[in-house]
């Protein structure tokens, strides 16, 4: 089930919250857990068993970790847990990718392709479980919660399918006791409405243009249209993911949880380094705290730091998808980050305009690498961006003018919402009538679009 679907908004949400608020407080975690199971099972009736099994196994591991005090044993228990968790992820998400490449290298069909479907949300919940186990190992949590609390933490439907990747400490107090006021519920609903709008009114709409560009065939694009396509995809993926994260935060708020922020106007920063501190912040945090810093971070010399960064960014790319273009995407950021760190990073930060222009050119190009899975097609698209046309350009100026006419206004609206202005305005007028009317207008407009449109992709869904 996707948040931006009529099924969720008109059936699951009201019924769930009705049950939730009618339940006496001590049993609300159970209701949340069961509701989340229902939520997951509707989208993934088979692999739910896998998720439950993973939760249970990891909980046992944590119980042992909490009891065990000998360092060597603790380490082996941790290793076992990591193998289990990442093994599952590898099996379901990366095995076929691995097998294809092995077969290519060995020039024979050594490994069979399993053709397993990717369980919903496995990339997200695996990382959450891993962060929990690591925190228990490191002793960050003296008393890890009960099985129900752990299970609720992992399965909580607001963040189950597509994040934010929550750390246990962020919700541990709230799992034990949370304060619900009508104001909080109201605020949560507000945030949910705006997230829904971002997804349905912005992301879905701009994706129509990107689909059109794909439909032309990359070989025959003109350079302006290619750039428009890159910008369109950049907007699409941003509002899609940010909208979803906002909806998650809003839903959590309605139950008394304060889920972490995942996006902070990432398109308004001046360097790629800053970009990754504002884009998918919880993922960056995970890789920093559980991969980069344990490896040594930047405290073991320049060369080691570069190795660490290389690893982190290859893994970040690979996490997004089992395909080489994602690895290329991640490594592209590695190169940029190293260059910024050693050469022009500070210059960018201190610049007034150049930093922004740099970002607005570089980031759409990286999104193209992310979007186009096939390498030969990707090369063609990058050539189109650079103005190199190998095939005849079949997109006329008339067509370009038509596209600008049709989508110009949408692009302007997307640009406006990428700035910090909306947030600033929101904080000024919060609690007033205008916000209420806006939220309701956005909500009903979104529902109208959902009822009419068939187009509702969620890019991070098969994750």
């Amino acid at each position, binding site marked *: 089930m996707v948040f931006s679907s*009529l099924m969720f908004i008109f*059936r699951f949400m*009201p019924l769930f919250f009705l049950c939730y608020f009618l339940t006496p407080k001590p049993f609300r975690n159970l209701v949340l857990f069961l509701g989340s199971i229902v939520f997951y099972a509707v989208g993934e009736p088979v692999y739910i068993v896998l998720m439950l099994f993973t939760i249970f196994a990891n909980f046992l591991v944590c119980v042992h970790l909490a009891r065990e005090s000998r360092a060597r044993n603790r380490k082996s228990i941790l290793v076992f847990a990591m193998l289990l968790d990442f093994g599952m992820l590898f099996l379901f998400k990366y095995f076929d990718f691995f097998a294809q490449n092995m077969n290519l290298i060995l020039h024979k069909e050594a490994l069979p392709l399993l053709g397993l479907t990717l369980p919903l949300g496995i990339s997200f919940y695996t990382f959450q479980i891993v962060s929990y186990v690591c925190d228990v190992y490191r002793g960050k949590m003296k008393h890890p919660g009960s099985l129900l609390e752990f299970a609720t933490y992992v399965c909580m439907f607001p963040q189950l399918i597509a994040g934010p990747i929550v750390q246990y400490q962020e919700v541990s107090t709230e799992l034990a006791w949370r304060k619900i006021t*009508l104001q909080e519920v109201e605020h949560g*609903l507000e945030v949910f409405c705006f997230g829904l709008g971002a997804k349905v009114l912005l992301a879905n709409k701009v994706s129509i243009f990107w689909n059109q560009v794909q439909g032309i065939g990359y070989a025959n694009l003109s350079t302006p249209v290619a750039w428009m396509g890159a910008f369109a995809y950049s907007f699409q993926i941003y509002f899609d993911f940010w909208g979803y994260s906002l909806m998650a935060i809003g839903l959590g708020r309605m139950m008394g949880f304060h889920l972490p922020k995942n996006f902070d106007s990432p398109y308004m920063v001046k360097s790629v380094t800053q970009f990754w501190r504002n884009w998918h912040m919880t993922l960056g945090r995970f890789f920093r705290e559980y991969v980069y810093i344990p490896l040594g971070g930047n405290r073991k010399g320049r060369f080691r730091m570069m190795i660490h960064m290389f690893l982190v960014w290859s893994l970040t790319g690979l996490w997004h998808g089992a395909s080489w273009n994602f690895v290329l995407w991640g490594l592209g950021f590695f190169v940029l980050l190293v260059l910024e760190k050693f050469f022009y990073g500070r210059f960018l930060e201190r610049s007034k305009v150049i930093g922004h222009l740099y970002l607005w050119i570089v980031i759409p190009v990286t999104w193209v690498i992310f979007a186009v899975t096939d390498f030969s097609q990707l090369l063609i698209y990058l050539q189109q961006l650079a103005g190199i046309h190998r095939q*005849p350009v*079949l997109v006329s100026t008339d*067509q370009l003018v038509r596209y600008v006419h049709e989508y110009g206004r949408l692009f302007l609206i997307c640009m406006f919402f990428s700035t910090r202005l909306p947030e600033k305005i929101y904080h000024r007028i919060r609690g007033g009538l205008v916000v209420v009317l806006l*939220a309701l207008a956005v909500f009903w407009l979104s529902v109208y679009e959902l009822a009419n449109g068939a187009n509702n992709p969620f890019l991070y869904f098969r994750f």
Partner: protein
Amino acid sequence: MKLWKWFIKCPILFLLLLSWFGLTAFTWSEGRLPEKLDVNLIEHPVFTALLEPKEPDAVLNDLNEDLDNNSDDLNATDKPHETEETVIAAASASQNAGKETADAKKQADTSKKDSLNEKEEVGVTKFLEYKKKKTDSRYYADPGKKALTTEFSYQKVDESYFDDAVFIGDSRTVGMQDYSGLSNAQFFAKTGMNVYDILEDEFLTDPKTGKEASVAHMLKTNKYGKIYFMVGINELGTGNTGTFQKAYERVIKKFHKWQPDAVIYIQGIIPVSKKKAAEDEIFNNININDKNVAIAQLADGKDIFYLDVSESLTDKSGHLKADYTSDEVHMYAQYYKLWTDYLMKHAVVRK
């Protein structure tokens, strides 16, 4: 605490709750929906019902009236069904299970007669039979045959042939407009266009007055030598093949009425890819073929011809070639040339 105070505290919550309750109550009580939308109620609340102006099949009732009203003045300018018709190769004239209209049935049974002028050639639209597949859709049935391009002594022409041509249709024709390279032709095309709205929808701009115009207006006030028509992909899930054919016939008759000297080309609906056909209950190639067979029967071989333009776009099993498309329905820009080539090889040239 008083209820209105609660409302002030959290207006969004209350308003949404109330509207949800109201919508759900309306949905269950009204009972309008289940027969019209055979989708699960749980997925589509009353919204789609609330916002649709009429029931979709109501549009077709209007058409029936129109067709009856127009049959009188059409007799004056058109040749009625009984004298001009197409011959169907299959002797047994197999029919769609209850979906063909009475008119089409007549066409299947009567034989070809010579046209008024013996020297004037009359094209024959033949059909290729195959084994029918069982279908259980209320939108279509497997016709058991495929329509072939009207047999005629077509000429090969170049782009100048299209100087006085107009292309009318949906998003595929928009693709023609963008990528065919025929900058001399006129295009009355719009994404989402369908046979019920094509004549009256004012989506064009009349270059003479600068005002909004419909296809009907443009055809009445200008002269064209050729009309290329392709619609159908958007109507696959509305009504059934019989209603589609009726509406299509009405449109063709109007075309002929307003442009009596023009050659009218009925272009067969381009199929969708194998992937789409396999997974979609409505947008599949049996449905498309059913519609094509129905509209091919409207070709008279004198002014109205049926062209199967997808010949070079489809694979052996009649699906749109998979690597010709990215969204399973529309071709990449570079393949519209194949469509243009087909048209240039199948042109009716009048002395």
